């Protein structure tokens, strides 16, 4: 199935809701009056875009004079265009420019970091790159075991230590090994942490500092993994992880559920960080490059 298919399937509920909202109001071509605008705004809010961004899109729609009226498909099209305009500048894939390229993966607990790492590793390896993993989540019980199982399944080397060990030290060892062994891509897992835990956030900063001792340009990427079910708190996550860990890009997981991940739109507008990939399923190839147009159309329920 194409990823658009998967995404659309995942977004089916929201698509339906947005479509329902619009269809429920207008049959045929009608002016875009306040009532219809309200419905659009609410549908956007229900997709987690947040009241502020939803309000701005509403205003932009209101400013475009649809003098002759507009039908449902037309509304969905213009909503998709508005969303796409916000997302297009940030839809940038992850690129390997260094050797070893050191990628640090961060996020709150349960956002899907470890699974995302496995998917990334599997895809880059299939693309002919040599990949190494580092089990930097030394906090959660069995997190190391989880990543080891993935490494075995994919067939990539893994650097790991003891549970409760020093994550920064482990990261250092991993970067050193990756340099010595001429690895193309090193992906470092970290323990999930809530962004308002100062002590844990400091640990991330330390990991970065330590890695930079071996290669001043590393980590080359710091990926923040966001859970699509997260609401407006995602913005706080981006702000704080961005400040402490220097996040360079976003990955959104769990878009195969009923969540729409609309806060990506709010995030794109506010922070402009690249969105590298989205997770649309459990399979290894269900981590897909982020396509602004398709995401926007799926969100707005445009039928191709």
């Amino acid at each position, binding site marked *: 199935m194409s990823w658009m298919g998967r995404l659309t399937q*995942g977004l*089916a*509920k929201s698509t339906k809701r947005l479509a329902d909202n619009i269809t429920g109001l207008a049959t045929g071509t009608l002016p875009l009056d306040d009532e219809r605008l309200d419905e659009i705004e*609410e549908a956007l*809010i*229900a*997709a*987690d875009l*947040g*009241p502020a961004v939803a309000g701005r899109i509403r205003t932009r729609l209101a400013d475009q004079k649809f003098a002759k009226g507009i039908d449902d498909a037309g509304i969905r099209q213009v909503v998709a265009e508005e969303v796409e305009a916000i997302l297009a500048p940030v839809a940038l894939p992850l690129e390997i420019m260094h050797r070893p390229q050191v990628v640090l993966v961060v996020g*709150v*607990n*349960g*956002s*899907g970091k470890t699974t995302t790492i496995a998917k990334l590793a599997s895809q880059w390896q299939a693309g002919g790159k040599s990949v190494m993993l580092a089990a930097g989540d030394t*906090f*959660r*019980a*069995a*997190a190391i*075991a*989880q990543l080891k*199982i*993935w490494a075995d399944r994919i067939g990539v080397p893994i650097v790991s230590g003891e*549970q409760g060990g020093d994550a920064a030290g482990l990261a250092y060892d991993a970067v050193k090994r990756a340099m010595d062994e001429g690895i193309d891509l090193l992906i470092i897992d970290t323990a999930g942490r*809530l*962004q*308002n*835990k*100062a*002590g844990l956030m400091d640990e991330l900063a330390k990991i970065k500092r330590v890695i930079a001792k071996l290669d001043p340009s590393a980590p080359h990427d710091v990926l923040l993994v966001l*859970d*699509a*079910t*997260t*609401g*407006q*708190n*995602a913005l*706080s996550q981006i702000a704080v992880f961005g400040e402490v860990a220097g996040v360079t890009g976003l990955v959104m997981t*769990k878009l*195969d*559920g*009923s*969540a*729409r991940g*609309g*806060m990506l739109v709010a995030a794109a507008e506010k922070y402009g960080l690249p969105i590298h990939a989205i997770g649309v399923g*459990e399979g290894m190839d269900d981590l897909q490059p982020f396509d602004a147009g398709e995401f926007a159309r799926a969100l707005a329920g445009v039928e191709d």
Partner: protein
Amino acid sequence: MFDSLSERLGGIFERLRGRGALTEIDVRAAMREVRVALLEADVALPVVKDFIENATQRAIGAEVIKSVTPGQQVVKIVNDCLVELLGGEDEPTPLKIAVTPPAVVMMVGLQGSGKTTSSAKLASWLSTRERKKVMMASLDVARPAAQEQLRVLGEQTGIATLPIIAGQTPVQIAERARQSARLQGFDVVVLDTAGRLGIDEELMAEMAAIATATTPDEILLVVDSLTGQDAVNVAAAFKERVALTGVILTRMDGDARGGAALSMRQVTGAPIRFAGVGEKLDALELFDARRVAGRILGMGDIVGLVEKAAANFEAEQAEKMAEKMAKGQFDMDDLRQQLAQMKKMGGLSGLAAMMPGMGAAKKAMDSGAVNPKMLDRMEAIILSMTPKERTKPEILTAKRKIRIANGSGTTVQDVNKVLKMHQEMANVMKRLKKMGGMKGMMKMLAGMGGAGGPEGGAGGEGPGGAIDLGAVGRMFGRPGMGSLPPGFNKFGRK
């Protein structure tokens, strides 16, 4: 973003100050702001709509108590409605585990919502608080090492776990768990299931099958408090397939406003029983509707702050401090202890996030005007002093200060700031002593949490109270200084 709803409503109602009853027009205008506040707190849209309608009906015509602004009155009504909807002032009903053993508690939820950790926390809670003999079993055969994770957590908490047998299906494991719990005389068996998406038909059917096979006495839905608008879909999807009896809200120690709580409560109809409040395995609390309501409305978590402060302040330390204060001594080591205490409470920004009306301080911190790192730096400065210097800071000569600055990687100015701060704190401590020492201070803190603060108005418990930080400032002996202890403001500035 705004700080508190009452601040936001303040503007709207400025012109209306002093009117008698709330008119429909006023209320509707206020409710527009309430609506945005709820949406920003991630309360799901349909829930917001229902809620606003109910609250509006209740607010129209309500008398505005003298000395309270109409905005505060509306907030009070909204807050009351919220508390009611979230389950009321009382503690949530206890879990139904007093059945013919073993009682079966099944945990369900999305991936990454925190089921496994919550399972261990709940098992530990039942074992320590309810003195039950508890066993845990992981039915998660999907996520690699999930069963292993629960086993390790069991070891950490001293809770028995069902031995892992590879290749069994979740239903088989569940049945084996119940069987062996009965044979071994366990009171409760906690079943941790795999995370699943509401739209994944296969896994949802599996969950229903487990429920049918084990007839759980409690089926608890574990929900991440960071959840956004999707909360309603999740709640509806799970409710459709199993008879949910309660909700556990995880990650309430984060800075999310936790609107998902309201959505969950509304859609499932099941009570929210517990809140997960930290990484540690004892970080599980009974759900407190009052506190969460305040947080959703952006009123801060004053009660939480007070409790956190109280719990963190080890009694022993307090005793020692009180003793020293009684003698009018407060040396650099005491200052360091204070700093460590602040760090424990989550640093300045952690504290700030819990306080209402802390926007300014938070902004100052974000903008770098008050550097959160300063706690570390101050500690480093103190640690670079000799023991003698710490007890008698007055012996510090310019030469010594240069040594300390070099040793701690700071400047002499920084060292001077710490000394100045110590001086001011020592003065405050002396003043505090007159007021009854540390215990008196904690009492004041506790009193403040219950009441609405200086602006709470006649209502007393007025959630309308934009509790100004001056209260805390005053408590530390300095009005209008935010939550920062004396001297911090000076130090913070660059």
